[in-house]
């Protein structure tokens, strides 16, 4: 699979925030189509910043990001929106619109393809609605389509968020700590759906995690960040005790999520 051309290449990416914090210090890696790439690291290691640079929710300070042949760091205006359309994203806190129904939340994934006036009047096409329903079915939550999003449990909300990202028709899906605010049981349900999206729909996955046991179970490749730099890159099976201590600091113990 990974013999193809990379779908995303990152070269010497740095990000320094206005307050002087250097979140990323020269990151380089490639992502190949169909991969389930997991980025691990402590909080503050730059994982979230990295993902947000990839779809320009944050602007990188220097370096190159090449996605599907375009220089992500150089695009402006409408092209940024088109880029985001092609890169779905889910978040630790789901980031749904609480007062809208589940279906309406999922259809918001179509906003990037809908004219401003049409979207303000909520004139989504029947096709969009059908698509939204089919993705709700994929994440097993179609029965709740008419319920308000804030009445769902955390795990259910994250599945709605996955469906919303899928309606964008993305080539890559970014997941920023998708299970960090869920209990261990729900955690696996959500991760299983992400795996399903990865294998069945062939959508490339870039996922931030901090549980190593989840990494071994789901990732096809791992990148470890520490202090804004890559300290490990390779197969999840090769992460030994020594690597673990290097990533998470001396005396860290691995916690298993079952």
């Amino acid at each position, binding site marked *: 699979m990974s013999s193809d051309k990379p779908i995303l290449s990152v070269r010497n990416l740095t990000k320094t925030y206005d307050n002087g914090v250097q979140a990323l210090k020269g990151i380089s890696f490639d992502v190949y189509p169909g991969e389930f790439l997991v980025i691990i690291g402590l909080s503050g290691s730059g994982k979230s910043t990295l993902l947000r640079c990839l*779809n320009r*929710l944050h602007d990188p300070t220097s370096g190159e990001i090449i996605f599907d042949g375009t220089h992500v760091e150089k695009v402006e205006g409408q092209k940024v*929106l*088109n*880029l*985001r*359309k*092609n*890169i*779905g*994203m889910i*978040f630790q*806190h*789901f*980031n*749904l*619109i*609480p*007062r*809208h129904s589940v279906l309406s939340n999922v259809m*918001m*994934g*179509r*906003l*990037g*393809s809908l004219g*401003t006036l049409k*979207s*303000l009047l909520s004139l989504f096409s029947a096709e969009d609605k059908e698509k939204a329903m089919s993705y709700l079915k994929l994440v097993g939550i179609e029965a709740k389509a008419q319920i308000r999003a804030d009445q769902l449990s955390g795990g259910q909300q994250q599945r709605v*968020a996955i469906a*919303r*990202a899928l309606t*964008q028709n993305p080539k890559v899906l970014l997941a920023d700590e998708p299970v960090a605010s869920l209990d261990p049981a729900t955690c696996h349900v959500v991760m299983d759906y992400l795996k399903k999206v990865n294998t069945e729909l062939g959508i490339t996955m870039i996922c931030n995690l901090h549980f190593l046991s989840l990494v071994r179970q789901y990732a096809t490749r791992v990148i470890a960040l520490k202090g804004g730099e890559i300290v490990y890159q390779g197969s999840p099976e090769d992460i030994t005790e020594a690597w673990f201590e290097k990533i998470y600091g001396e005396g860290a113990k691995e916690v298993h999520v079952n």
Partner: protein
Amino acid sequence: MSTKAAKLNPKRVGFDAIFFAISLLIFFFVMTSVVAQFSETFAFISKDWAALNMSSLFLGFGALVFLCAGLCLLFNSQGVATLGEYLFSNSSRKQEIAHQPFLKSFYGLHLLITFAGTFYLSAIATGASFYELTDPDGFAGAMNLFKGLINANFDLLPLAIIEVIETIFIAFLATVIAIPIAFVLSFLCAKNIMVHPVAFTFYATMRTLLNITRSVEPLIWAIIFSVWVGIGPFAGMLALLIHSIASLAKQYSEIVEGVSDGPIEGIRSTGANAVQTVWFAVVPQVVLPYIAFTIYRWDINVRMATIIGLVGGGGIGTLLIKYQGQGMWPEVGCIIIVIAAVVWLMDTSSAYIREALK
């Protein structure tokens, strides 16, 4: 104790100097007014200072402030804590200062004496007098008026009701027209929406304009508009409209500034543009608080419309001033009862609706 102040905090010195200058002035006026009780010459002096011209007043006060700044720094260097030092210093010094009992500390006594002096001067300025409050003639007159109010003349009831409905309509129209204007302005006046430097300049200008508009009383607006469009309900409505736009825009924009960022990020990540992001991520979060504030604004506007009526803004206020001017107390009593009933009704129902919206 005489720890040398590491850095000169301009806020602290400024606060201390001005507060010191004001307290010294208060002390001076208290002294002259006390002495004036016994001596005619001092009474003359304490009245005469108002006749001084502006520039010498400003110069005098400025010199006093400078003097006080030096005085405060001298105090601080001797380890005596001033109020400004207590308020603006870092937490370790703050704790050191707070350790001494309030009444035994210099800033505590300073605050207390200034407060007492201000209270005394306020009583003098108000002309508060027990003698006048207990004057039997005055009391009898007030009782007479009060009797008239209690024996309200309900023949006036139909007219009062028609006029109070006009007042409610004035308030309603002003509120309704203000809503869409304030709605649009609220996003343009929210710091978290207007992040782009150009947008931020616009934000700052709009905020200042709204603040100025809001600080001009509706009563003044009513007078301005009654010259513009003629005396009557329309002028009153315009006055309330201007005030409502400024108030609602401020309250709305504060709600916008308080929305959570999560949904905004979520919508932006789908490739939505700025307008779509505001509409889908911000608006759903603000709608209910907006409605609550709007109902409350209507409630306020009904009360304000009554007051504006007093200067010819139409409605029940105009009716009230008409009968009051002729000393027809039973009729005034009837109008007051109608106003009280409407205010109470609006107040209760708006509180009830706002509670239900939570």
